[in-house]
Every structure is written in structure tokens, then in C-alpha cells.
């Protein structure tokens, strides 16, 4: 049913004919409801899966390549961003076998500093924009924010949706904003932050996911990291199911980024299990799954060291930022 609604002959504009609030409401509220208890039970069951030895080592390395190494603080400086970039390119100075992370995520005014440090390497520069984290600014300001980051060289833009408009049912407005930002991004990839902690229900998470994907998001992202609870396994499971269903309906692959509160390698591996079991193997790649984090990288390195040496590692042996 969904695929017939969505598939357009040109394969291009998914929103042809569905841009009004009413039409979007009909589409989004027509999505199957989420069994909340079932989702929590499924996420909890998958969290108990045991990943050991070679599989664990492979999972740790994969998780490293999926990290968006993030610093989003008022106290950020170009110096801090430079050291973060050095860490992103070579996470463990003592071991060249550790792969570089996927991207460095900073505020727009620090994109230039990050870009200069990363040069032409494989690590991308992601920038939050659109009046992050609240998103409470006019569209004009948001677009200027995005243009600023893109001009400075950002490869990926993390935008926030207007949660107020979404919760009030003004889906058309949210949709238009995402499309406008997508246009302003140009070649840069667009990640749309749903801020699931403010969406209240898993049904809303599914609707916001579909809305963002319909409007052209390349990635949907759980949280800003500024609101608690940030990423949780049930929310990630629902979003992963949404991108899977969207791919089946439209043929377009959309990625998922979990962000906020993921600090341990154990958590990261649990998310990888969720990805594999919900969306499928295709999504087990940095192009389609990301983990936004800052302290996670050190724990991944510690566990990697444990796997290789057999000794538990201390935090004194890894750089702080």
C-alpha cells in the first residue's frame, strides 16, 4: 500500500502531491502503529547477544569507522578541534592498524579549522546547523547557518527539525524546512535530527522518520545529545525499521545516526547488533550507520587493546580529546 502511494514514475520527487498538512497527516498517521512493549522487549533481547573474540574485534573496528567524533560545547576552540581531528585520523598513535573514524562533528564556525586540519583525508567534516540544538529560529536564519557551514567546507550537515511544529501537527512546515535545508546543502549530505526525547511516543518517532526521509534526508539521527534521554535502543530499533521499510517502498537507502549517551564499547556493539537484526547487513557500513560520540572512541580503543593483549587497559594510556 505504501509503495504504491510513494513510488512515482520519475523516481524523483516523493512529495509530489503530498505537501499539505492534511495529505501528510493522512500518510504519516496511516503508517502501522508501533507495539511499544514489543519493541522494548525486542531491544532488550538483542542487547543480551554475546559477541566474542574475532567477532568482537571486527565489531570494534567497524564501530571505530562509524564514529562521528563530536565536540559541541560552548568552550570549543580551534585548538581543541585540531587535536580532535588528529585523533580522528589516527585514533591510536601507538597502533596504525586502527582505522580512522567517519567524521568530525563541530559547530559551523569551527568547520574551517577542522577542514584545514583534515585536508583531503578520508575523514569528513560534519557540522550541526539550523540553530542547533533547539532549532528555534526563522527559516532565513537556519538557511544562512547551513550556507555558512557548507561554504566553510562541511561535507555533512546535521539539522534539527522544528519539534514544536511537528508536535502541533504542522507537518507541511517541517517538510518544507527540511527540503529548503537539503537544497541549501548542495552536495553536502543531510542528517536530520529528530530529537526523539521530545517526540514523546515511538509512533511519533516513526512519523518523524518518514517525514524526514520523504523530504529528502540522507540520514535520520536520534538526538542532539543535549536532551536526556538521548539515543536509546528502542528508539534506534524503530528508526532502523523505518529506513528498512522506506527502502522497500521507495528504493532509496537512508542512513541512521544514533547520538548521545553512547559511552561504552558494549553499548556500541549492542547498536551494531540492532542494525544487523533490524535493517540488515547493508546498513552495517559507515555510509549508512553512524554513532555520534566523544568518549566512546577511547573505550573502543581500550577494548580493542584488551582483545589484542589479553590485559585490561587503563584510561591513562589514551588521549583525552
Amino acid at each position, binding site marked *: 500500500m505504501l509503495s504504491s502511494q510513494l513510488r512515482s514514475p520519475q523516481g524523483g520527487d516523493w512529495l509530489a502531491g503530498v505537501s499539505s498538512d492534511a495529505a501528510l497527516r493522512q500518510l504519516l498517521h496511516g503508517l502501522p502503529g508501533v507495539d511499544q512493549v514489543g519493541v522494548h522487549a525486542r531491544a532488550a533481547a538483542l542487547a543480551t547477544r554475546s559477541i566474542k573474540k574475532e567477532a568482537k574485534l571486527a565489531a570494534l573496528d567497524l564501530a571505530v569507522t562509524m564514529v562521528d567524533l563530536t565536540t559541541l560545547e560552548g568552550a570549543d576552540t580551534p585548538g581543541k578541534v585540531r587535536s580532535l581531528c588528529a585523533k580522528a585520523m589516527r585514533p591510536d598513535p601507538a597502533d596504525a592498524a586502527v582505522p580512522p573514524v567517519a567524521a568530525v562533528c563541530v559547530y559551523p564556525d569551527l568547520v574551517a579549522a577542522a577542514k584545514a586540519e583534515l585536508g583531503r583525508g578520508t575523514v569528513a567534516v560534519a557540522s550541526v546547523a539550523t540553530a542547533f540544538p533547539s532549532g528555534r529560529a526563522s527559516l532565513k536564519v537556519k538557511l544562512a547557518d547551513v550556507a555558512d557551514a557548507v561554504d566553510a567546507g562541511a561535507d555533512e550537515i546535521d539539522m534539527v527539525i522544528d519539534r514544536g511544529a511537528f508536535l502541533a501537527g504542522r507537518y507541511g512546515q517541517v517538510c518544507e524546512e527540511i527540503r529548503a535545508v537539503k537544497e541549501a546543502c548542495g552536495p553536502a549530505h543531510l542528517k536530520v535530527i529528530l530529537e526523539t526525547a521530545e517526540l514523546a511516543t515511538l509512533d511519533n518517532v516513526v512519523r518523524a522518520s518518514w517525514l524526514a526521509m520523504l523530504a529528502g534526508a540522507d540520514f535520520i539521527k536520534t538526538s542532539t545529545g543535549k536532551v536526556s534521554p538521548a539515543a536509546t535502543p528502542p528508539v534506534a530499533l524503530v528508526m532502523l525499521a523505518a529506513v528498512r521499510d522506506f527502502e522497500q517502498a521507495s528504493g532509496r537507502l537512508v542512513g541512521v545516526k544514533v547520538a548521545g549517551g553512547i559511552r561504552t564499547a558494549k553499548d556500541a556493539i549492542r547498536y551494531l547488533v540492532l542494525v544487523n537484526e533490524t535493517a540488515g547487513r547493508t546498513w552495517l557500513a559507515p555510509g549508512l550507520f553512524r554513532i555520534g560520540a566523544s568518549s566512546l572512541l577511547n573505550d573502543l580503543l581500550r577494548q580493542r587493546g584488551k582483545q589484542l593483549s589479553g590485559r585490561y587497559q*587503563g584510561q591513562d594510556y589514551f588521549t583525552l580529546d
Partner: protein
Amino acid sequence: MPDKPAQPDAARLAVRKTYKLYVGGAFPRSESGRSYQVRAAKGGELLAFAAQASRKDARDAVEAARAAFGAWSSATAYNRGQVLYRAAEMIEGRAGQFAGEILAAEGMSMTAARRTVAAAIDRLVWYAGWPDKVAQVAGGANQVAGPYFNFSVPEPTGVVAVIAPAESSLLGLVSVVAPVIATGNAAVVVASEERPLPAITLSEVLATCDLPGGVVNMLTGRTGELAAVLAGHFDVNAIDITGAAAGSRAELARLAAANVKRVFLGEDDWAETPTPRRMLAFTETKTVWHPVGS
């Protein structure tokens, strides 16, 4: 009618106890689900089951100790002393229970057990007096050839693994744990393998005496298994191998050398009044230069 002394009810079944670990201020079961039988020294009667910690429990205990270290090491020395004193008060309140456990574990007379509990309380009170005095003994103002004040102060080493004495299950335990935490370290303690019950009861005391969770973590289980993991752990800064079997000490020291842990061995006569050396073994001297104002 005069009261008769309470007689144990022959018809009533004893409550079988299965104790747990003490990690991060909570009492979790061993991650491995294992437990082992604790038997009396005389007669071999089954006293209780104790959790048999695994290497992952040791790892979790180190994580908990590391997390607790910051706040405990920066607490005022006065506060640390008060907390230790409070622990002594609470052992006093449970003296009867401790005496019973020592009696069963070590096979001594009730009189000797009571005397041992009293000695353990006195030991804790002795160490409770030290936190705000250790800097005056181990530190000081140094004379230097220049217009500088120069101070040396002892600071806690960090996370200290303690292999508790195998024989002296309460007095020995208190004598090795108190000096470690008095100066602001966080401890991961491996209790006596054969006689863990006083250590478990001490955990219950520590859990309710204002000591922040994670400052002392008590593991019960196979000493050989746990000591090797702790000696090799890179996030442990020092290890007291006093309670390890004599034949295993060289290997523990070798494992500890990988991250240059401090290794301490001191087989004291626990009945003697101690010296500050156990405290000083787990401190690092920080020296500060400060220009003299005119």
C-alpha cells in the same frame, strides 16, 4: 515466672545464606553466576555460600573504583577520617556477629574472637586519626637554594588492588584496607578465599557508613584467579600482595611490572600496633615550587 534462656528451636530450619559481592556500593551476584561453599575451620560444617567472582567482576570492580577515586581523593582529610571512624563505630555495633564469624572461620575461642574484633575496631580508629596528619609526617617545606617556597605533599596513588591476608580474616583485612583508603585511594579487595565471611560482613558495614560507593570493592572467590587479573590490569596503580600465596608473588610482581604498578609486601604481626608505612606505600609525593613574594 522467670524467663528461660532462649533455646535454639530444633524444629526450625536454619536460613541458608548465599552472599554476594560488593562492587560500586551495590551487592551484585558474580557475573559468572558461580558460588562456592564456605566451611568452618573446625569440623568443616557448611557456614554459607559465597559468590565466586570472575575476571569480569574484577574488571567491573576496577571500573567502580576508578569512578569513585576522584571524589574520595578530593574529599577533605577530615571527612575521610570521620568516615573511617564511623565504620569503626558500626563494627562495634555488630561485634557479636563478627566474633561469631571469626570463631567459626578461624577456629579460635570466643574470648580470643572477641579480643580480635576489639583489636580490629581499635585498628580502624587508629587509621581514622591519620588522614589529616599524614601530610605533616610524609610531607613538608623543603629548603631550596633560591627565592622559592618548596613543598612536598603526599597524594593518593589511585586504584589499589589489595590481596587480603588468608589467615587473619577480620583484623588482617582491616589492617590492609584501612591504610589504603585513609590517604584517599580507592581499593579493590580480594577477601580471604577460605574465610570470606567477616569480609562480607565488613562490606555491609562499609555500605552503610557514609563511605562513598566504589571506594572499597570486595571480591570473594579464588585468590589465584583474581590476583593475576588485578596485577595485570592497566588501570590499577598499585597492588598489595601480602595475602597472596608465597609461591605466586613473583609472578604477580612480574605482571604488575607491565604498567609499573607499585607492589607492596608486608607480612606484619597484625596484633602489633602498626606504623604509617602501609599508608605511605600507596602515596605519591608531589613537590610544588612557589616564588617567594617580596
